[in-house]
């Protein structure tokens, strides 16, 4: 158990049968948050507020901060963290798309050693992950962003706060020195499939293109094509696909704006 904000609710509802609960928050290695020239390392138990209260992280990893800032309310953010958000593996997790966009890697440990899994490969279905029995998430490691890069995440919800994403989009872009052309981009989607989705073709379509409405609109359509949502109480398939196109366009623009500083 890290923050416990998903685990205790599910355990209480008997959705999970638990043999035991181990509180990981007294293990220093899992509570370490470090940001330096190599990148950002977020210990599996680090709560959201420590991520968004860190000025250096807010400056260099704004997309991750966008996500961490809207998971639940302040009370939840005191406990819940990105490690738990990832292991809970909800398709609508607000913390995951920006991690994927930032090329983050999940560091996993067991008695057999450690292994690294790209965050986009970590979730295998709703509440299902690559973690095997005996394995533990240690940290989420994010490479240092390139110069002239920027990132952003947003979601659509019918309320102002405290709601589950109908659709969400995280974007990372790297621009050239002039700030007028994309060098590369990664676009990740929430709530439009059984897992968070890396929209590879949408991101790749921006490589070498000028930053303009045409290139952005084309990438947004490709992101929409990568979405495979269901209709449920929060939204319909058509609404969610439309949202992905709109939000992708907005987030590319915002990430580019941040890249230009």
């Amino acid at each position: 158990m890290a923050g416990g904000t998903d685990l205790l609710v599910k355990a209480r509802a008997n959705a999970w049968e638990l043999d035991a609960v181990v509180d990981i928050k007294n293990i220093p290695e899992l509570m370490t948050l470090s940001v330096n020239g190599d990148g950002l390392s977020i210990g599996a138990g680090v709560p959201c507020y420590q991520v968004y209260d860190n000025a250096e992280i807010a400056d260099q990893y704004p997309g991750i901060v966008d996500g961490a800032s809207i998971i639940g309310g302040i009370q939840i953010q005191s406990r819940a963290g990105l490690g738990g958000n990832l292991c809970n593996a909800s398709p609508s997790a607000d913390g995951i798309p920006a991690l994927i966009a930032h090329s983050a890697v999940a560091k996993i440990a067991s008695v057999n050693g450690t292994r690294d899994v790209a965050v986009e490969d970590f979730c295998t279905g709703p509440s299902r992950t690559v973690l095997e029995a005996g394995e533990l998430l240690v940290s989420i490691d994010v490479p240092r962003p390139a110069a002239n890069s920027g990132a952003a995440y947003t979601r659509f919800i019918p309320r102002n706060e405290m709601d589950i994403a109908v659709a969400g989009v995280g974007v990372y872009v790297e621009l050239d020195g002039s700030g007028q052309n994309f060098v590369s981009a990664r676009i990740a989607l929430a709530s439009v499939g059984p897992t968070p989705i890396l929209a590879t073709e949408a991101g790749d379509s921006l490589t070498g293109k000028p930053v303009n409405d045409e290139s952005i609109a084309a990438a947004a359509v490709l992101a929409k094509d990568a979405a495979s949502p269901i209709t449920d109480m929060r939204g319909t398939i058509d609404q969610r696909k439309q949202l992905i196109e709109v939000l992708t366009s907005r987030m590319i623009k915002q990430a580019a704006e941040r890249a230009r500083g």
Partner: protein
Amino acid sequence: MTTNSPSKVRVTTTINGQQHELLVPPYMSLLDTLRELIGLTGTKEGCLDGNCGACTVTVDGRIVDSCLVLGAEINGKNVETIEGMATPEGLHPLQQAFLEEAALQCGICTPGFLVAAKGLLDNEPSPSEGRIRHWLAGNLCRCTGYDKIVRAVQKASS
């Protein structure tokens, strides 16, 4: 939840400035620990899943939903509840402002709002209205429509 666990966890903790030695069942929430083991019933149970904020307390200065914390987790921590807000000299300025602005009706959400608002003002004495509304988004009130609560917090801020 599960039965394959020790019967009690020994916890030494500070609640509203007073030290307590407790034997807590391992899956008892902090909310139930406060209400049932210690008798501090000012903290209310609402949704029991982290949406309503009625059970808000602070642990080491951070507001949390006590329904989503285990009592066993507060060993060595400093917990503050609604019972710790007023002093023998009188009400906390937030409590006084809630009375003057009529920022409550049924009252079930009020302890959570007061503890959450104190958590804001202790660190940010003069928050904007937008900041107050954002900070209190994790607290639900089905009576007031929130405006009176926000006005009360504004009144208590410097």
